[in-house]
């Protein structure tokens, strides 16, 4: 049956590889090494006497039924695993662990495989099962289409086209080759393309488990923390200035804390709790940056918290009952009152204005103020930022709005904190209502916290969430999620992994589903809306702005992560100093200079400055400058960059709105790539790293083109490409300008690099 369709649709090639996956569940020869190893592990667990086997034991199902049986072993992994039980009559049955009582689950837990390969194999199984189901559903629709009397012939033809297109997308794609896998996994985990050395190392490795090894290796790099910081910065609006109006605050502490937390793989529930419950100043407790971000906008902060951590949009309930979801306006205010007792500017023990006046006087007497001024405004802003401090005041500030119109409350009435879904909260049991709220949000029993997290992390790997849009997860998941069984599995896996993002990613990136080729068709909006994209592979994505930029940076250095922005310790020291000890103009000037330069990029070898002057350049120092651009990873530059910077042109978020980054194309992007200083100077001038180190570095002369291809696209050139590139190298005499052979060759190599970064292949993650 499949073949008939395949011939009609002309997709036989694609189907051929996967045909049997559906028809027979376990033909060994079609299993990939990964699945085979999973099976081997499962078999192994049968042989390992981890629990006293061959002993009769009473088993209880979750609904209370009892059974005498011997424990033989387990099959599968994670939430969908089952136990093999030998009954008294000698029959062996498979029983899903999800249906066992809690005691029994604990009993078998140690026998369950929880290794990466086994979990990955389970995910693949669930993906394939759903895809198969969808495929047969569509095939049925197609068969029934001719009998449909409500459609005209034209409509039928159109519908047929749609169904056939969807069917093609219901067949798993081929496995990626090593180059494709390498480039993608580097971009997804490290946020950039591999360097020439990294690419050569991986492609040259003969290890059978080199993919898994690479995943492990990348998850432990600084590059991973930088890449995830970019994601979190977009999601949580982490930005320089922190608060919307700036207020002279430095974000460096908050940013460093975020990167360190990601690098150390702080459990995500802990990360969120720290942010929601933080007390103190930004420099002493950087997690407070989350609440300072929405200074003066308590209700917006609540909406944002729901969007980013619960995937739930409740903004409308701020003003009226939600029209579609079960969220009443009262629910919103009860939620908000959890967060109604903290303030963000509570440090009142010193008067910044008086202090600024005193210091301005000193500066004035020393002739260090601008002419005709008596007050240093910059200094005043620096000192004023010292008042920012998150603290619980014990005063409930949230009340129902003045125009509250429903029967269940009065305008200006204060309401008791309460959750409108999930567990009931007893705030008396917690130190503050905030702690109670954080506890409720991050609980594994919160029906949305874990789902939101796995859905978002899945999207990082696959380009599309299991539920779209990711910030609006419907209350009734079953039927809405494209693969409910898989989503449940992922949720349980995240809980079992104790919210370790690294462990979660490790499994996801080891799945066959991830390691398949990118889908060559775009899923339609309707398809995404209906959850009808079943992940035959990741979708083809344009790189994020940071990925494009960081890949450009990678092309200018052997060590893309060496330049880092640090300064939390210095900031802490500066902000906690006793200002009254500053009595001379020199001290005050030094304070101002330090304050201004904190958080600069450093070269990782102790030096703050490159060839630039000392300290007077503000944050725009010379470190990492190539061709007039600071070629340093995006996470180590200003966040966000100014509107005309490469990063913003390619869609970096303004960090004002949640997930405001975009990957939509534009004419200015193309102009930047064709005419901008990155492609015309930083990558292709005679001093450019790629030209100097790669083309003329170690190795044989004949390999230049291959080296360039490997550096830029992570693959070897095809013969036709090699010919085209080589013909440029041979044509030494460019008639517009007289140059030496060497210059002409540099120009020709520059042409190849320039053209490669201008391909769509470069810009997209396949």
């Amino acid at each position, binding site marked *: 049956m499949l073949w008939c369709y395949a011939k009609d649709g002309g997709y036989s090639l694609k189907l051929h590889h996967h045909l049997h996956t559906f028809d027979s569940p376990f033909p060994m020869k079609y299993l990939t090494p990964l699945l085979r190893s999973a099976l081997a592990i499962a078999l192994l667990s049968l042989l390992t006497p981890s629990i006293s086997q061959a002993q009769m034991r009473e088993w209880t199902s979750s609904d209370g039924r009892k059974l005498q049986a011997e424990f033989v072993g387990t099959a599968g992994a994670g939430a969908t695993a089952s136990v093999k039980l030998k009954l008294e009559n000698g029959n062996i049955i498979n029983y899903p662990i999800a249906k066992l009582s809690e005691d029994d689950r604990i009993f078998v837990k140690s026998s369950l495989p929880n290794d990466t390969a086994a979990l990955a194999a389970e995910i693949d199984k669930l993906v394939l099962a759903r895809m198969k189901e969808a495929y047969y559903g569509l095939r049925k629709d197609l068969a029934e289409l001719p009998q449909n009397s409500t459609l005209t012939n034209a409509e039928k033809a159109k519908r047929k086209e749609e169904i056939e297109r969807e069917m093609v997308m219901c067949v798993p794609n081929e496995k990626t080759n090593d180059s494709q896998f390498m480039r993608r996994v580097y971009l997804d985990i490290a946020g950039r393309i591999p360097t020439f050395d990294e690419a050569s190392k991986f492609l040259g490795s003969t290890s059978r488990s080199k993919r898994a090894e690479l995943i492990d290796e990348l998850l432990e790099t600084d590059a991973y923390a930088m890449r995830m910081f970019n994601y979190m910065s977009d999601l949580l609006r982490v930005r320089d200035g922190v608060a919307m109006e700036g207020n002279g605050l430095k974000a460096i502490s908050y940013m460093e804390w975020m990167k360190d937390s990601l690098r150390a793989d702080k459990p995500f529930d802990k990360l969120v709790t720290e942010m929601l419950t933080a007390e103190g100043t930004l420099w002493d407790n950087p997690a407070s940056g989350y609440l300072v971000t929405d200074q003066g906008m308590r209700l917006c902060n609540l909406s944002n918290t729901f969007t980013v951590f619960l995937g739930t949009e409740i903004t409308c309930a701020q003003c009226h009952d939600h029209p579609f979801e079960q969220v009443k306006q009262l629910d919103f205010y009860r939620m908000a009152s959890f967060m109604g007792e903290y303030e963000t500017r509570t440090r009142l023990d010193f008067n910044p204005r008086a202090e600024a006046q005193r210091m301005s006087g000193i500066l004035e007497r020393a002739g260090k103020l601008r002419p005709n001024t008596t007050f240093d405004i910059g200094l005043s802003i620096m000192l004023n930022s010292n008042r920012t401090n998150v603290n619980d005041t014990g005063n409930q500030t949230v009340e129902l709005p003045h125009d509250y119109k429903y029967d269940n409350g009065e305008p200006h009435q204060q309401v008791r904190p309460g959750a409108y879904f999930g567990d009931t909260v007893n705030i008396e049991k917690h130190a503050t209502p905030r702690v109670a709220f954080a506890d409720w949000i991050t609980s594994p029993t919160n029906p949305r916290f874990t789902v939101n997290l796995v859905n978002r992390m899945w999207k990082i790997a696959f380009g599309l969430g299991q539920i779209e849009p990711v910030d609006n997860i419907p209350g009734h998941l079953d039927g809405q999620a494209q693969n409910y069984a898989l989503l449940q599995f992922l949720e349980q896996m995240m809980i079992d992994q104790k919210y370790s993002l690294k462990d979660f990613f490790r499994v996801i990136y080891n799945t066959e589903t991830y390691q398949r080729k990118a889908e060559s068709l775009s899923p339609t*909006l309707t398809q995404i*809306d209906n959850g009808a994209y079943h992940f035959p592979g990741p979708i083809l994505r344009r790189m994020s702005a940071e990925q494009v930029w960081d890949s450009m940076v990678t092309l200018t250095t052997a060590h893309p992560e060496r330049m880092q922005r640090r300064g939390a310790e210095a900031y802490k020291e500066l902000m906690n100093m006793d200002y009254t000890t500053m009595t001379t103009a020199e001290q005050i000037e030094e304070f101002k200079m330090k304050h201004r330069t904190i958080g600069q990029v450093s070269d990782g070898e102790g030096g703050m400055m490159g060839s630039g002057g000392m300290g007077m350049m503000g944050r725009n120092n010379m470190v990492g400058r190539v061709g007039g651009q600071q070629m340093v990873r995006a996470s180590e530059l200003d966040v966000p960059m100014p509107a*005309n910077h490469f990063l913003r042109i390619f869609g970096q978020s303004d960090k004002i709105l949640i997930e405001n980054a975009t990957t939509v194309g534009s004419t200015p992007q193309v102009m930047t790539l064709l005419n901008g200083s990155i492609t015309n100077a930083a990558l292709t001038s005679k001093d450019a790293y790629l030209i100097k180190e790669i083309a003329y570095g170690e190795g044989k002369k004949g390999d230049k083109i291959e080296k360039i291809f490997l550096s830029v696209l992570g693959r070897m050139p095809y013969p036709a490409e090699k010919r085209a590139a080589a013909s440029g190298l041979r044509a030494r005499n460019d008639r517009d300008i007289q140059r030496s052979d060497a210059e002409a060759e540099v120009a020709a190599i520059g042409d190849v690099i320039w053209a490669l970064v201008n391909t769509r292949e470069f810009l997209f993650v396949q």
Partner: protein
Amino acid sequence: MIAHDLKKKLGKLDEQSRRQFVARTAKTALGVSVVPVLGASPKVLAAGGGKAEHCIFFYMNGGMTHMDTFDPKPGTETGGSTAGISTGVAGVQMAEFMPELAKRFSDIALVRSMTQKTGDHRGGSYWMHTSYQPRATIIHPTMGPWAAKILGKKHETLPDSVVIGGGGNHPGSGFFGPSLSPLPIGDPDRGVQDGEIPEMVSEKQFDRRYKLINTFDEVFQREFKTNEVAAYNQFYDETLKLMSSEDLETFKLTNEPGYQAKLEKYGDSRIGKGAMLAKRLVSSGIRFIEVTAGGWDMHNDLWNAIPERAGSLDMALAALIDDLKAEGLFEKTLIVLGTEFGRTPKINANGGRDHHPRVFSTMFAGGGISGGQAYGKSDNLGMAVEEDPVDPRDFNATIAHALGMDLNKVVYSSSGRPFLVAGHKSDRETGKVITEGKPIAQLFS
């Protein structure tokens, strides 16, 4: 039964219209044909609309305080320290920070009864720009692309619309697709950044390089024919076209005759320069220019920020009006000022005002607008609309009317959903999809 038939009929219409749409975008993208300039319908002209050939839309990002700009309440408990100044029209004052506009009030119409429903920046801004609430499944087009869609493209090589200083979240051309995308200009000083082949690269070298791109991209392009890849291919084609035209000169602000003297009038600020560049673009025939200015989200210390913020706006708009008049373009150019919401009359503990969508102010001038009037009213405290509410759809209907657009022109998205320039509803009697927003007729009389 009737409803069912109607739906079926509509469904067929959708399909036909959709195909026309696809055919038309394909043609313009390949440069085969230019959509003819259709012009305003006689009906629109009779109602005083259609006089504007251009529109300069100032968008105040963050929620401009109405209380301290166009609708001051001096001496009331909510007015703060903002004083009012006379406009020359009895009973209408502007805030003290806008003296130049107050002097030119006979050219200006204020709308003081704007109202909308959402207090979040993104939602509010989206509604003001598109007449629709944000949805997860579609991006609605903004007014510039709408004008191009309904009235036809105005210029062969220049973009039909430009956004100066807009952020990454601008909805742009939405589902109309990339061929009608406004050209973004990040910084008015720099014009079209990287618009020319750099000095060290000869044209010949550029051509040689450009050919290599296609060779190197062949295998990838054969395999991946996604919409996103196709869009980038189109952007490469269009960029090459723009680079080879002479139109890029227009975007160089310093080429403006008498630049320095003008800068003093417009103000050496982003909004001043944005306004001057917008004027320049209008002179070269671009239809719709949006100038975005931020810094209006004044939750803290409002009175520290307002003199500078409102002052630079005042200078820029006043200079623009004078400049357009001097060039004889004022009557042909609609100037509009919008924002996502106003700010709370109640002053908060940080000396600022918070988000207030219930009532706020916008401004119109030129392009057939009768100046010297304030339409609609807020109550004494600036809390709510007292007379003649105007919502974002009416606001956009007014712009569309001034430009001569047919408000009832239905455009279908690729999934067959109908959309109109000023929002839509279905007519109770005929069941037809009609405009929801209505132009403010009083502004045209």
